[in-house]
């Protein structure tokens, strides 16, 4: 039994059958990649996992609880964090403040009106946030405006914001999209590092085969809305069906 169980999920957009009988089981403490050509339904699947889309049929269970029909903030509270294709950060705030917000959210759980304390006096949380920034090598930029960061830094900041909450499941939507090779490698190292240091499950949706084969322990190939194969990276590489559907086309 995996930590995330997707059963018989179907989703249609008008005439388009975006997800067809998707069954997926993600084991705890693994890095699981979902790959597939454009239009295979990867992003739709991800949006179903975070509750942004409700499938027409089927179920999505996280640790024995259904995620369907829950709001994004409730899904986060269950222990699922998400990194977006275009980093979603608080552009008007400083880097440190960006990381502090998830710290407050995690500690308080829900709405709390701390109107008479100062942010400065929350030494414990600031310490936590600063350590999270050290983990992604951004401690020296903690007083920068988040909007002024480079794309790679924004991505790392977003990861720090997710990781500081110690999620059980981290969903990454093309974490290296639009990055130069050097930055991509740094991101791979960062993710590998995180995985080594703590128990965490990651689901990565990725186009870049280099990233996928460097990180993933399991790979699911999605084609035209349904899973084609699920296997280890070694087996996927030589799989004839995958060559045909994806790698053959890409290379």
């Amino acid at each position, binding site marked *: 039994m995996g930590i995330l169980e997707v059963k018989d999920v179907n989703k249609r957009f008008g005439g388009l059958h975006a997800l067809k009988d998707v069954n997926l089981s993600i084991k705890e403490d693994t890095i699981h990649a979902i790959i597939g050509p454009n239009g295979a339904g990867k992003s739709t699947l991800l949006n179903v996992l975070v509750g942004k889309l409700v499938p027409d049929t089927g179920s999505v269970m996280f640790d024995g609880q259904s995620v369907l029909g829950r709001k994004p903030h409730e899904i986060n509270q269950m222990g699922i964090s998400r990194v977006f294709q275009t980093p979603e950060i*608080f552009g008007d*705030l400083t880097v440190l*403040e960006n990381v502090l*917000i998830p710290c407050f959210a995690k500690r308080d759980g829900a*709405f709390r*009106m701390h109107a*008479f304390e*100062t*942010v400065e006096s929350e030494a414990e949380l600031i310490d936590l946030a600063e350590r999270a920034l050290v983990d992604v090598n951004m401690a020296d930029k903690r007083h920068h405006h988040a909007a002024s960061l480079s794309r790679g830094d924004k991505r790392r900041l977003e990861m720090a914001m997710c990781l500081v909450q110690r999620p059980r499941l981290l969903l990454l939507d093309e974490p290296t999209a639009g990055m130069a090779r050097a930055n991509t490698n740094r991101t791979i190292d960062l993710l590998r590092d995180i995985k080594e240091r703590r128990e965490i499950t990651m689901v990565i949706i990725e186009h870049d085969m280099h990233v996928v084969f460097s990180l993933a322990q399991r790979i699911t190939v999605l084609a035209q809305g349904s899973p084609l194969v699920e296997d280890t990276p070694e087996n996927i590489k030589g799989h004839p069906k995958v060559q045909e559907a994806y790698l053959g086309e890409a290379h």
Partner: protein
Amino acid sequence: MLGLNKRDTRFLLIVIALTLLTPFILQPFPEGSALAQFNAGYPDLMQRIAIFGIFAIGFNILFGLTGYLSFGHAAFLGVGSYSVVWMYKLLDYNVLPGLVLAIITSGLFALAIGYLSLRRSGIYFSILTLAFAQMSFNLAYSVLTPITNGETGLQVYTSDPQYLMSEGEPITPHLFGLVMNESYKLNLGGWVFTFNIGYYFTAVIAILAFYLSLRIFRSPFGLMLRAVKSNQTRLNYTGLNARPYTLAAFVISGMYAGLAGGLLAAMDPLAGAERMQWTESGAVVIMTILGGAGTLMGPVLGAGFIKYLEKIFSKINENVLEGWFSFLPEPLREVVVWIFSRFTGEGWALTLGLMFMLVVIFLPGGLMEGGERIRNLIRRKKNKPGDGASPDGTPAE
């Protein structure tokens, strides 16, 4: 001090000093001089600047921090005024019970309007608040006449019960005997300074209001409000629902507006439905943007600026202008006076409109950004020999 760091404490002390010294600051020209008409140190104007400063500070907690633009805050202003006048009618002329009631009723009112309006964001939120405020205005103007006295406006009559009224108590608004419209005049050389009890009462409340807003700006709650403005998607995926935060900010700013409305009635014991008109809602938006939305001092500055224009510019009529331009030959003078009189006197709003346009186009951060730029310019000039100064200034307060 008071839960503030050193920099903010200094900032607060400066604000307190400026507020308490306003009767001097706004009276820079000696009586009888040609420039005396630009003096603004008289009670009515100073009270209004402080009151609308409170209104704008509260509005800024909602608009400046969360980015939700309410176009209906005048409704709370009106509710505050009515509450205070009702307390005069039922109890006595002591302003305190009325002001407490004003904050409570406007808070409840804001809770109801905010709960419904905050289901939408952006322009839909603005339109909803505008609709609710106009509904409130129409209710006050006609339907609820028994409570609001309709178009005449609510006022105290001798037939009112005034249960707490005691023998010899003042029959104008007062705070435990301190009569609001009493003033003390100080003659100093050619200058006349007026110290008005009503002004100092509103000034003390304005300082408290400012202090509270400063605390909110620096608090984790304020941080969350800024996060709402910056990126709601990320806030949601961080495990927080934005709605309670925006609703809390809406209620707080509604209470500020109610307090401001109450103070208007504490200075002048009247309450009319026109206080709930959309023009009043628009005025506070303009004050906040003109001064600098999201900054601490900006809204107060904007409020002062607009009230000054409204009172001082509107006094400059054609006769005054004739006097100024008497050195010009007759036909030219008439032309110049005609042009200037479009922008002064009753045309003061045209000057305000032009200023607002210029500020929005060239200084999107409001007057505070203007001040910031001047400060940076001076600093850069000072540092020029070394040329190693950092170009980025600290953000405006």
